[in-house]
């Protein structure tokens, strides 16, 4: 009798309605209730499938490589060598811009130190390591969702680490959802905002002060691009490059390329400013591999710093990222 009633429940419509009600309730639960367990459950389901996602990700990269490595206007010969040289130039340019921004930041720190005499040397030399991982999965159902890489706490990855693709393109930050072998990356286009400076594509003029490059706070548009209001005083043109200049970002991200200006429009209400639209140079989901830069902390005099297992030491923006 009891068994037949159970069977009736399992085969009847009542179970469907019970499941619908349950799903409805769970869907409306607040973040603090879901956060402790749902991400872990998702990771448990995903981990056994990583070989499949990795294989299909490699297949996708083989069939449809990212657009940055394809330039139809370029003559077809020796394109690999040209691409490698162009990437090297971009990396060196980023190193140069990073050092200029860093110098500017150090000068500010020095002023603050002199003023208060208490501030520690944040912005001084830091020990940096990098963990390389392949992009194994993207968020289903979304064009611009979370990206997963096969590097986790076992490789020294910690939440908040900067993630780079294609050498020096800032792709996003490692989110709180970090597993032993896999971690989620919040794409740069989904971060609440990124402080940047806008430089000409050929790099900044060394004779000009760093402050002459217009600053902008990039805000996501929800369409995979950013928008920002920029003071009209500085030079602005389509094709200029936005580079990270944000104290909230990891220091290794300083000077890294984020996006390219694709549109400039006047703002009627604010005549002294212009609105720009910036598109990412390369999206994380389109890349095959990514590098997570792990900042160990500020180095004291004669101190070596820790190095995580499986990570290799390198400078923040050196060529060993790829």
């Amino acid at each position, binding site marked *: 009798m009891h068994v037949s009633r159970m069977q009736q429940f399992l*085969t009847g*419509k009542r*179970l*469907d309605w019970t*499941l*619908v009600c349950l*799903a*409805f309730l*769970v*869907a*409306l*639960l*607040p*973040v603090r209730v*879901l*956060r402790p367990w*749902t*991400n872990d*459950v*998702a990771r448990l*389901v*995903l981990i056994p*499938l990583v070989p*499949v*996602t*990795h*294989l*299909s*990700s490699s*297949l*996708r990269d083989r*069939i*449809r490589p990212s657009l940055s490595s394809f330039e139809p206007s370029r003559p077809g010969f020796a394109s690999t060598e040209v691409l490698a040289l162009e990437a090297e130039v971009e990396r060196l340019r980023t190193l140069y811009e990073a050092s200029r921004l860093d110098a500017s930041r150090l000068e500010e720190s020095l002023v603050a130190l002199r003023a208060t005499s208490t501030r520690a040397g944040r912005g001084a030399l830091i020990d940096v390591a990098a963990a390389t991982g392949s992009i*194994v*999965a*993207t*968020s*289903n*159902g*979304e*064009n611009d*969702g*979370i990206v*997963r890489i096969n590097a986790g706490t076992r490789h020294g990855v910690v939440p908040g680490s900067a993630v780079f693709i294609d050498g020096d393109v800032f792709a996003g*930050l490692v*989110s*709180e*959802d970090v597993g032993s072998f896999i971690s*989620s990356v*919040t794409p740069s286009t*989904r*971060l*609440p905002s990124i402080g940047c400076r806008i430089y000409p594509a050929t790099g900044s003029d060394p004779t000009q002060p760093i402050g002459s490059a217009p600053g902008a706070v990039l*805000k*996501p*548009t*929800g*369409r995979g691009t950013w928008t920002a209001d920029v003071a009209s005083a500085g030079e602005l043109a389509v094709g200029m490059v936005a580079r990270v200049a944000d104290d909230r970002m990891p220091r290794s991200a300083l000077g890294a390329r984020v996006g390219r200006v694709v549109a400039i429009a006047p703002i009627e209400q604010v005549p002294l400013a212009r609105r720009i639209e910036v598109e990412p140079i390369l999206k994380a*989901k*389109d890349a095959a591999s990514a590098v997570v830069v792990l900042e160990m902390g500020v180095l004291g005099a004669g101190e070596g710093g820790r190095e995580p297992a499986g990570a290799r030491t390198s400078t923040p923006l050196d060529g060993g990222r790829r």
Partner: protein
Amino acid sequence: MHWSVFIIAVLLASALDAGLGGLFEVGSLRAEILPSIVVFVALSAPKKIVVRAAMLVGLVADLFAPVILGDGTPLVVPGPRVLAFALGAAAVIPLRGLLYRQNPLSNSAAVAIFSAFTALAWIVMSILRSVVTGGDVPWWPATGTSELVVQFLGALGDAVLALPVFWVLTRTKPIWGFETKTRLTPGVAREGL
């Protein structure tokens, strides 16, 4: 229906969708394999298990698609796609008698309808969730209308991708273990025999 085959197919399709990612992407139009699996089951499996199977697929879809909160952290919210897939499947069930299943275009049409209903239900659930919990909608700062357009374009993409996917699924039909029953109803013609 063999549930083991179904679960393996769903997990494989989800993994392929997550890995292949931008391969089936044209602009903001992104096609996925998973809706074809649900529609295939909805058209072939017994009606009473279709909604349940769709809800299971919705749960897997939710696990594979975390929402990015306003502070940039990801959160898996199980539920919105569970309900959305259930509604999508419920919309496809009445089509079982109307569609000529040997025609691949009819399957694609069913997938488009399923994806459109799923998208609509997911958007409604996301708005409802943002109202109840006070958080942002997953497509913030874009508008709900633009997300609806993106999702409907995705439904068209799903329909196009359904053509090859259904070709494969139809060939694997024997291993799914769908029961095929022929019901004979008494009528004047039969009584006359």
